[in-house]
C-alpha cells in the first residue's frame, strides 16, 4: 500500500495556499533539533524529572503537612498541571517524552522481561477512561490537593503501577491501555500544533525495513534490541495525528532514512476528518475513545465545579433529599450525573436531531460517537482555563517552598522563605482564562462544522446546529464556572 495514499491528511494539506510550503520541522531547528535527535535526549529529560519526583515523594511523606508549604502538592497541583496543558497547547505531548515513570520502567526492563501480551478484550480505552474518572473522583473525595501525604502516595502508586503492568506485559501497555495522564495528554495533543510525522511519504513507499515500527535487533541475537520501534503500534506512514503518540522519538531514531520529523500542522485538524489511523482505526468506530473524550470534556467541568461554592449547595440539597450524610455516595451520584447521564442525554439528543433533521444516514450511536470528538477543544479549553489559573496565580509559590526545603535540610542558600511571593494577579489571569475558553469554543465549532459538511452537504447547517448548541451550552457552563467564587474545601459536606 502506498504510504502517500494511506496518509490521508498531511500537515497543511487542506489549507488553501499552503500545499507547497513544507511544514515547520522542530528537528531541523538548530540546537533543539540536534538535541532531540540525540540518542540519549529522552533520558536526559527524564533524569531531572525523576529526581524531582523523588524529592516530591520525600517531601510529601516527610515534609510540612500544610499543602501550600509542601513541594509535593505545590509542584503537582499548581506547576505540573499548568505547565502540562500549556506545553500541550503551544507545542505537543512533550511531557510523555520526559515521563520519569518510563525511565524507571526502561531500567527495570533491562532485567525483567515481560512475557505476556495485554488481553485482547482490554485493548481499548475503557480502563483508562474509568481510571481518569476515578482520579477526578478521588481528587474531590480525598481533597488530594490539600494532602501532601496522599499526593506522595499518588506518585508512588503511579510508579508501582507502571512497574507492575509493564513488568508483566510487553510493549507500551501501560502508556496505551492504562495511564490516565497519558490519555489526557493524547486527547489534548490532538489540538497541539506539532506532531511526530513522516516528512516525505514517498520515501516510506520505498522503505523495505519498516524500522519505525519494528525496530532493529542484533543480527547475532534476536533478543538484543539495538533500536526500539514504536511501542504504541503506530506505523509512521499510516499514523494520523497525535492520538497514542508519546513523542518518545523511537521512530525518529529508528528510521534509516531520517524521514520522521516533528512537524507543524493545523491544531485540532486531525479531528476534522475521520481517516483510518494506524494503531487506532477509525475514530468514529471507537466508542471507547469517544467515552474517554466525554470524560475528558465533562470531567473538566466537574473538576472545576468541585472548586466553586455552588457545589456545596447542590451536595447539601442532595444530602437532605436522599437522607445520605456521607460524601462518597453523594459525590458518586454527582459524577454519574455529570459524566454519564448528562453527556448521554445531550449527545444522544443531538445525534437524534442530526439524523432526523439533516437526514444523516448514519445510525444513532455512530453519529454520537463521531461528533463527540468535536468537544475535545472545548474540554481542553476548560482544562487550560482551570489549570492555567492555578499555574499563573500561583506561579512564584515554588520559590518560597524551595527555599523552605533547602532551609529544612540545613542548606539555606536561597535565604529565608518569602511566603508572600504568590503569582500573577487574578485580574490579569482572568482574561487569559476566557481566551482559552473562547479558543476551545472556536475549535469545537470548527470541527463540528467540518464533520457536518462531510456528512451532509445539502443540510450542513441542520447537521451542525445541534452540536453547535451543545458546544455553546458547554461554553456557557464553563464561563459560569470560571466566574464563580472559588471555594476549596476538603470537607465538602461541611457547609
Amino acid at each position, binding site marked *: 500500500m502506498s504510504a502517500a495514499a494511506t496518509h490521508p491528511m498531511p500537515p497543511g494539506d487542506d489549507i488553501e495556499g499552503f500545499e507547497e510550503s513544507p511544514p515547520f520541522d522542530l528537528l531541523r531547528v538548530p540546537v533543539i533539533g540536534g538535541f532531540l535527535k540525540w540518542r540519549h535526549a529522552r533520558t536526559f529529560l527524564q533524569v531531572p524529572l525523576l529526581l524531582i519526583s523523588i524529592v516530591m515523594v520525600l517531601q510529601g511523606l516527610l515534609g510540612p503537612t500544610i*499543602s501550600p508549604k509542601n513541594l509535593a502538592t505545590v509542584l503537582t497541583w*499548581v506547576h505540573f498541571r499548568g505547565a502540562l496543558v500549556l506545553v500541550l497547547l503551544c507545542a505537543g505531548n512533550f511531557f510523555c517524552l520526559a515521563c520519569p515513570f518510563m525511565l524507571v520502567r526502561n531500567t*527495570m526492563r533491562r532485567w525483567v522481561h515481560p512475557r505476556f501480551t495485554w488481553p485482547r478484550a482490554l485493548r481499548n480505552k475503557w480502563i483508562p477512561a474509568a481510571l481518569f474518572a476515578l482520579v477526578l473522583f478521588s481528587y474531590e473525595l480525598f481533597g488530594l490537593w490539600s494532602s501532601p*501525604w496522599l499526593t*506522595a502516595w499518588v506518585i508512588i502508586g503511579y510508579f508501582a503501577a507502571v512497574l507492575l503492568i509493564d513488568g508483566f506485559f510487553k510493549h507500551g501497555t501501560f502508556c496505551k491501555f492504562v495511564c490516565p495522564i497519558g490519555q489526557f495528554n493524547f486527547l489534548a495533543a490532538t489540538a497541539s500544533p506539532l506532531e511526530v510525522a513522516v516528512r516525505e511519504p514517498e520515501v516510506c513507499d520505498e522503505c523495505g525495513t519498516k524500522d519505525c515500527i519494528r*525496530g532493529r535487533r542484533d543480527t547475532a541475537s534476536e533478543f538484543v*534490541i539495538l533500536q526500539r520501534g514504536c511501542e504504541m503500534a503506530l506505523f509512521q506512514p499510516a499514523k494520523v495525528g497525535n492520538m497514542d503518540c508519546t513523542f518518545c522519538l523511537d521512530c525518529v531514531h529508528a528510521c534509516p532514512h531520517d524521514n520522521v520529523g516533528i512537524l507543524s500542522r493545523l491544531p485540532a485538524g486531525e479531528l476534522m476528518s475521520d481517516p483510518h489511523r494506524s494503531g487506532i482505526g477509525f475514530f468514529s468506530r471507537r466508542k471507547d475513545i469517544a467515552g474517554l473524550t466525554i470524560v475528558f470534556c465533562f470531567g473538566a467541568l466537574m473538576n472545576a465545579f468541585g472548586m466553586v461554592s455552588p457545589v456545596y449547595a447542590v451536595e447539601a440539597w442532595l444530602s437532605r433529599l436522599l437522607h445520605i450524610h456521607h460524601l462518597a455516595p453523594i459525590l458518586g451520584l454527582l459524577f454519574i450525573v455529570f459524566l454519564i447521564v448528562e453527556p448521554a442525554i445531550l449527545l444522544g439528543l443531538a445525534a437524534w436531531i442530526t439524523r432526523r433533521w439533516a437526514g444523516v444516514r448514519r445510525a444513532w450511536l455512530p453519529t454520537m460517537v463521531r461528533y463527540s470528538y468535536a468537544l475535545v477543544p472545548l474540554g481542553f479549553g476548560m482544562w487550560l482555563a482551570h489549570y492555567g489559573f492555578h499555574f499563573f*496565580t500561583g506561579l512564584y509559590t515554588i520559590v518560597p517552598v524551595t527555599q523552605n526545603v533547602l532551609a529544612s535540610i540545613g542548606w539555606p542558600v536561597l535565604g529565608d522563605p518569602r511566603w508572600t511571593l504568590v503569582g500573577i494577579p487574578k485580574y490579569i489571569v482572568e482574561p487569559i482564562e476566557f481566551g482559552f475558553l473562547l479558543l476551545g469554543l472556536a475549535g469545537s465549532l470548527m470541527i463540528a462544522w467540518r464533520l457536518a459538511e462531510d456528512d451532509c452537504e445539502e443540510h450542513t447547517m441542520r447537521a451542525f446546529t445541534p452540536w453547535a448548541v451543545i458546544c455553546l451550552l458547554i461554553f456557557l457552563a464553563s464561563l459560569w464556572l470560571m466566574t464563580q*467564587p472559588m471555594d476549596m474545601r476538603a*470537607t465538602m459536606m461541611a457547609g
Partner: protein
Amino acid sequence: MKSFLLRSRPRTAPGRCTGCIVSVCLAAFVITGCHRVSASSESISVQPRISPQPVHAGSSSTIHIQLANASAQPISHAQITVEGDMSHPGMAPVFADAAETLPGSYQAHINFNMPGDWIVLFHIKLPDGSRIERQLDVKGVQSN
C-alpha cells in the same frame, strides 16, 4: 509481526519484582502514616478562637489567642504573627500581627479573602526568645 520481533526471552519472573514493590510500598505506608511533625514546647498552651462564627470570606475576622505556660500562668510580651493559608497550594497567604489586649491575651484581625478551608498558623516568639508554632484548621469559610 511486531509481537514476534519484540518477543523477549523469559529470564526473570516479574512476580519477584511485584513482591519487592508491594513490600517496599507497604513498609513506607506504615512508616510515613505514623509520621507527624512534632510540636516543640508542648508545655505552652495556645488557645485560639475566631469570631464571628461562622467565618465569612471578605470580612475581617478576629482571632483571640490565650497564651499560658505549664502552670496556667498567662504569658505576656510574646510576639505572635498569624498566617492564614488556603488548603489548596498556590493561593496567597494572609498575615496579621497580634496585639496583647490583656496579660496573656492577644488579638489579631485577619481577612480570609476566599471561601473554603483555611489553615491558620501562629508563629509565636516567647519572651525568652524561643519560638513555637501552632496550627488551627478553619474549615468551610463561607462566601459573603
